[in-house]
């Protein structure tokens, strides 16, 4: 147990390193601040809908895109600079490093996704249950951060652009099928079936419930499915990274 605790502490060290090297950079911070603003403008301009209706999609997209923005490129980048080998020479398990990468994606995603949330509070729009919303934000960020480390696992490339391109191929379709633009209850049957395979669906559904008391799934289902997705992504990421590690460092 103490070994496990020690490895968690070392995950925090990896996360701290990632934040310093990959996240605390001017362009990344500017992206994090400007991205939600542009999303909001793209959402509101030309659409005559109340702000409460806009918020779930906006918070969902901001959280999803920021938590998965840098994560997929870290492992390829470190493979190229051989620093992954450096980390693996230290007394850490592979999951410790993956955990650190996930944690740094989570921290970045959470901080940025708090911005639209704070804006709503400033504009006087109160969620029905603030604690639940904060908890949902934490779980959703964990889930999307786990997806980002899964996206970094395959192919075992040392070219960050390859991973970023492939992750965009996964991320953009997910946004369109997740009830961000059209709520799930308004989708046709097949649309609902497709939406149910995206973790983003459950987060936007959860935010809709917590702001306008309209949702397709019960709130507990949204939470449980997000937890299940997170677990599945983490386990798959560890397995895939383990499987491709030899190829990656050789």
């Amino acid at each position, binding site marked *: 147990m103490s*070994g496990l605790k*020690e490895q968690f*502490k*070392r995950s925090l*060290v*990896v996360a701290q*390193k990632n934040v*310093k*090297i990959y996240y605390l950079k001017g362009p990344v911070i500017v992206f994090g601040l400007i991205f939600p603003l542009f999303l909001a403008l793209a959402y509101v301009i030309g659409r005559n809908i109340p702000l409460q209706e806009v918020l779930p999609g906006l918070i969902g997209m901001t959280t999803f895109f920021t938590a998965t923005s840098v994560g997929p490129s870290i492992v390829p980048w470190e493979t190229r*600079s*051989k*620093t992954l*080998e*450096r*980390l*693996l*020479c*230290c*007394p*850490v*398990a592979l999951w410790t490093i993956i955990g650190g990468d996930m944690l740094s994606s989570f921290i970045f995603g959470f901080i940025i996704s708090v911005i639209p949330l704070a804006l709503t509070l400033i504009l006087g729009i109160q969620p029905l249950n603030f604690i639940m919303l904060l908890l949902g934000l934490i779980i959703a960020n964990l889930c999307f951060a786990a997806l980002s480390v899964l996206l970094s696992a395959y192919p075992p490339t040392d070219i960050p652009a390859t991973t970023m391109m492939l992750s965009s191929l996964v991320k953009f379709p997910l946004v369109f099928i997740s009830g961000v633009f059209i709520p799930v209850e308004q989708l046709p049957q097949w649309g609902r079936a497709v939406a149910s395979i995206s973790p983003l669906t459950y987060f936007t559904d959860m935010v809709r419930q917590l702001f306008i008391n309209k949702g397709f799934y019960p709130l507990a289902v949204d939470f449980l499915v997000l937890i299940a997705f997170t677990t599945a992504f983490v386990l798959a990421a560890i397995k895939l990274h383990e499987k491709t*590690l*030899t190829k990656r*460092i*050789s």
Partner: protein
Amino acid sequence: MAYAITVRELTKHYGDLTAVDHISFDVKRGEVFGFLGPNGAGKTTTIRILTGLIKPDGGKAFVAGFDVLENPIEVKQHIGVVPEVSNAYVDLTAWENLALIGKLCGLQPQKLKENATNLLKEFGLYEVKDRLVRGFSKGMKQRLLLCMALVNDPEVLFLDEPTSGLDVESARLLREKIIRYNKDGKTVFLSTHNMEEANQLCHRIAIISHGWIAAVDTPENLRAQSMELQYIETAFSKMVEPQDFSENSSIIKAVSAGNKMRIYTADPSAAIEFVVEYAKKNNLRILTLNCMMPSLEDVFLKLTRGKEAVIR
């Protein structure tokens, strides 16, 4: 335990290629053990297995008393690694790099600060500790890598080509430090291409070729096992033909080497007598005559590519 590293029947395949083929050897505690081999011989694969980076397909290996397959974290807790390619974080300072490794090794803050300060001072990097590694020279980066490998005070040091591509001064400094840390009791596993370096530093040497161990012994014994590679190097006042020396039974082969004649023999005394007689008979003056022991490079070439690769 007498051995810092024990390897038994270690095997690793990459698809159809057998990178490491049932190799076995032991490294004694406090020893500098050289690992020599041509490119692609399996050196780096062996080091990666011993440092817990990749898993072998067969065999066993123990480092610092721990099974690399069963307890890779414990193994890594007791070792320091200087890899072949410089891999410090260039966007971090020297101090931040050391702190990162120290924290990942679980060092307490006070101990980490003490170790990092001492190492940076010893390796002449303390003045630049707050500079980004991006601006470091190759020599400085290599010294930093050694500091990073030593920050947790490991029992066993794995050094993969540590002086490769370094200027003379930096290479010499690193060799001095390797000797110093070995004298302090650290076991050193040194992979190198530099025969002179292996000769100077290593108590014993393993020569690996095509994934298998061709020989393990002291540099002196390896040379002694290859006495057919000793030769007499002589120059006469006139050019002579190698075939003039082939009739003597003590001479294995004679080859021209510039203006000199290199005469391979297992019996230098008889060969010298023949050379002197030959000079007298042909009215030649002997300008130089040296008896040369086989170099480690000769032994290496003989073991990895056959005797013919040396006597050409």
